[in-house]
């Protein structure tokens, strides 16, 4: 049986302490700049805050993983270099990277550092993963959410590093690290600026009938009826019309969250080393509830019992959940 490490999100120092206290084995977080893929306003850590957070986490036996998982634009590499140096100085336990240049810099400047390959790298084949392992010493890959469990089991046999999979939270199926939908409307890059649907470009409008429209950069991307659950204001989860589809429909994805609580034993059996909970942008309430639920579930499984996972539906996007491609590629 694999170790089944629980890797949990923290958008603020208070959320990090909440995750640690709720039983996280590791917590991932980022600085307040474009070096990470959740560069949201008011979120993330100053260097001083991260220093205190690392001490707190280590004091409780929890690892801190620093997300440097965006792609430096030409001429701006210094920001990523400084973040890596700072993380190394503060004693983070691993760096989560996507860009080969960032991986190469850390491997050379901080050879003792542990590298995890972010889902933003979109490495989903043994050939790609082995390349990162061979050239940068990557010790763990975070797999994209597009693989079935049999495929994960097969990949595990063909790579020399650990596997981490998402088990709960946002269900993004676009080719991560290569999705440019936000750029088209806002001019900001998910992959280089760290912002998908930047809040400064988002607007919600309540209509007279109680419906709500969500707009991005002035474009309406969805309209939720008075009796409908809402979703995030991302282009990939909007509803559109097309010449062949006059009725509005989800052209890319639906607002729904991943929840693999029922598949944990199979994932452990497939050799998954670590389970990731998405949601650095979510509240302490979310972190407390989701981390505690999965801590209990993983502990139950490791003790040989059936997992009794708490109902997390209220925390899911649109109050809908799926096992996505992990169950079957025909999930939609």
């Amino acid at each position, binding site marked *: 049986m694999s170790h089944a490490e629980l890797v949990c999100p923290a*958008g*603020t*120092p*208070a*959320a990090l*302490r909440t995750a640690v206290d709720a039983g996280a084995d590791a917590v991932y977080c980022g600085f307040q700049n474009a070096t990470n893929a959740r560069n*949201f*306003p*008011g*979120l993330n850590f100053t260097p001083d805050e991260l220093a205190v957070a690392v001490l707190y986490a280590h004091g409780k036996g929890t690892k801190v993983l620093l997300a440097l998982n965006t792609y430096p634009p030409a001429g701006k590499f210094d920001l990523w270099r400084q973040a890596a140096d700072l993380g190394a100085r503060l004693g983070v336990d691993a760096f989560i990277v996507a860009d080969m240049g960032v991986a190469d810099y850390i491997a050379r400047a901080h050879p003792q550092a542990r590298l995890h390959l972010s889902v933003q790298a979109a490495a989903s084949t043994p050939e790609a993963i082995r390349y990162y392992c061979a050239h940068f010493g990557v010790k763990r890959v975070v797999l994209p959410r597009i693989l079935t469990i049999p495929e994960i089991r097969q990949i595990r046999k063909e790579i020399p590093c650990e596997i981490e999979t998402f088990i709960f939270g946002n269900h993004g199926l676009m080719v991560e690290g290569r999705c440019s939908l936000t750029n088209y409307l806002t001019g900001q890059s998910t992959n280089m600026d760290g912002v998908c649907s*930047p*809040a*400064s470009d*988002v*607007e*919600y*409008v*309540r209509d007279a009938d*109680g419906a*709500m429209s969500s707009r991005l950069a002035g474009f309406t991307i969805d309209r*939720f009826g*008075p*009796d*409908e*659950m*809402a*979703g*995030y204001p991302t282009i990939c989860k909007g509803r559109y019309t097309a010449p062949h589809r006059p009725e509005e429909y989800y052209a890319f994805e639906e607002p729904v969250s991943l929840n693999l609580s029922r598949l944990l034993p199979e994932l452990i059996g497939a050799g998954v080393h670590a389970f990731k909970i998405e949601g650095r*942008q*979510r*509240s*302490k*309430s*979310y972190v407390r*509830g989701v981390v505690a639920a999965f801590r209990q579930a993983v502990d139950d499984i490791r003790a040989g019992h059936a997992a009794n996972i708490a109902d997390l539906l*209220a*925390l*899911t*996007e*649109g*109050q809908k959940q799926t096992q996505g491609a992990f169950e079957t590629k025909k999930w939609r």
Partner: protein
Amino acid sequence: MSTRIRTIPPGSGVVSRLACTMVQPILSRVVRRIAAQHPSLFARLGPHQGTDFLIDPVDLPFALHLRPDPQALLFRAVPRDAAPQAGAVIRGRFLLLLELVDSEEDGDAAFFSRDLEVSGDTEAVVRLRNALDDVEGSIAEETAAMFGPPGRAILGHLRRTYSRDPIRT
């Protein structure tokens, strides 16, 4: 399943103005105390320290006007018909808003379920949410403690009422 905020009550007239007058001394004291206890909150607000927020508890007879400027802090009750032009509006039932301030409820989940509405400057709302979420401890309990045993008793009653509320579950 139905959304929770069907209509926005008027919040105007004599009752509203009287209620505003009654709660204002409490609000002023509360906001000064929170600012003194949690100065780091302002850093996360960044450029939105000067933004006017209208926090609208739809089940109370008034709205709340917040400008979180540490140099000129403003938190006042206003009748809805006299509310200022706000940069951002946050609307929901009072107890939900209280639970969100204390991170006992998740803001995204309340948005998904349509219990929470936001309009205006979304970045300002996100910054305020993240600033409050980084506060350790309970702002509601700190506030209640300012008023001694009666304050704590009222908070306890409100929370029990909220936890039994069939709309919430």
